[in-house]
């Protein structure tokens, strides 16, 4: 049982290293992700609009 658990965990860790080591999808902290939209009220910066989070969820700051 212990040995089987070991083999499964080690296998998974190596699989993670092999398949996701380059992309880094799983072992990085997840910052906020989501859709954004252009802020209708903000000004333009260097020709591009200021983006804010869709739905207003992310207000910035820590």
């Amino acid at each position, binding site marked *: 049982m212990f040995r089987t658990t070991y083999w499964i965990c080690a296998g998974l*860790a190596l699989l993670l*290293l*092999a398949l996701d080591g380059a992309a*880094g999808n799983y072992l990085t902290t997840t910052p906020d992700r*989501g859709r954004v939209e252009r802020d209708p009220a903000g000004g333009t*910066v260097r020709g591009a609009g200021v983006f804010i989070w869709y739905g207003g969820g992310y207000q910035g700051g820590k």
Partner: protein
Amino acid sequence: MTPPAPLKLFRDEAQVETIQCLSCGGPIALHSFGARQRVVCPHCGSTLAPEDSGALALLEAASRKHQSSVLPLHARGKLDGTLWEIIGICWRRCVVDGVAYPWQEFLLFNPWHGVRWLIYSNSDGHWQLGQALDGAPQILKTRHHGVRFGKQRYKHFQGAIAVVTYVEGEFTWEVRVDDKAEINDFVAPPRGLSIEQSSGPDGVELNFTVARHIDAAEVWRAFQQPGKPPRSRGIGALRPNHWHRGRRSMWLSCLVFVAAWWLLSDRLAATRHPTIAFQRDNIGFDEPFAQEIKIGTPGETTAIEFTFAASPLDNAWAYADVLLVNLANDEAVGFGIEASYYHGIDGGESWHEGSSRTTHTVGGVAGGQYLLQLQPQRGGTGSTPTEYEVRVVQDVYLTRYSVLALTTILFFPLLAWLFGWLFERRRWNNSDYSS
């Protein structure tokens, strides 16, 4: 003259008999078919011995009460594929450091296979199954006193004087209450070897026994006893260390895993080509910063390292809300990043904390065109920063994958090794060698 029919000396079926105790008159069943040297009445403890003619005569009358043992006389059980019957029960005890340790020895009999001993330790509930050694052990000149027989080495576990305290049934040797023997136990779990020395009528008597650990459950099953066997405490001298089972395959597989880890880590590092996707310094704090940048390769996902550095920083901080918007699908990644530096003198000691340059790693970034947007803030009591620098490096090597894999690979075998070591320590705490 016609000769009489030939005598068939003892070739008929041997019979059991029941006799009356010559002291108390109680019934004594004789199940050893003549192999006995002593018969002790279960009811009164009187000893009968066979005379030269083979008939039993009273050797020593006694009157002691019957003592209940964990298995009854004449119980039959199948062990190692052979049926055995308990024909004699003998209680012995040794005294170590002022504490008495009693145990019960069950003499198992099979008319074709001879005898075995089933030993039950009263103090810790552990069982052993033993038989006479087919040879003599060799004393080894090792630092820890040990012996060898055949291919097996045994380590000295304990030595004690054993005294017989109670006897009932039939025995193949002249057993007697108060018989003393010096016993030295050697272990190689689950096996053990005992050397017993006693003084007999012909001088010194030597007996070698080889035993194996046997689970209480197996004994109970074999003898079809009702309920559950008595609970066992602690670690028996011969109890196998389950952390040592499969040890070789575990370490072998660990070796294989480490080799795979080495190859995969090496390949991962070699295929990483970190390059700067974007870099700009001297950015001001007055307005948000936005810049279209290209990250990675379309169709591939990459990991990036984002660096934020502000100066001058002296007891001050700088913070930025960073947004990376994927221009293809308006999906964004956002995080905050802070650089700060504080220092001072506290009770004569100077201290400092923070760093003017910080990094943040983001993984799973799909390749393509991105808008990088920063909303900076600053503050502090000292000199606040006037400008900041931003750098995005793509295709960075994430050591965490390699570290996690190696940690996992080594953790389990090391844990098993630790538990195995703790198990042995508990076992040897009961020996003559406990610290």
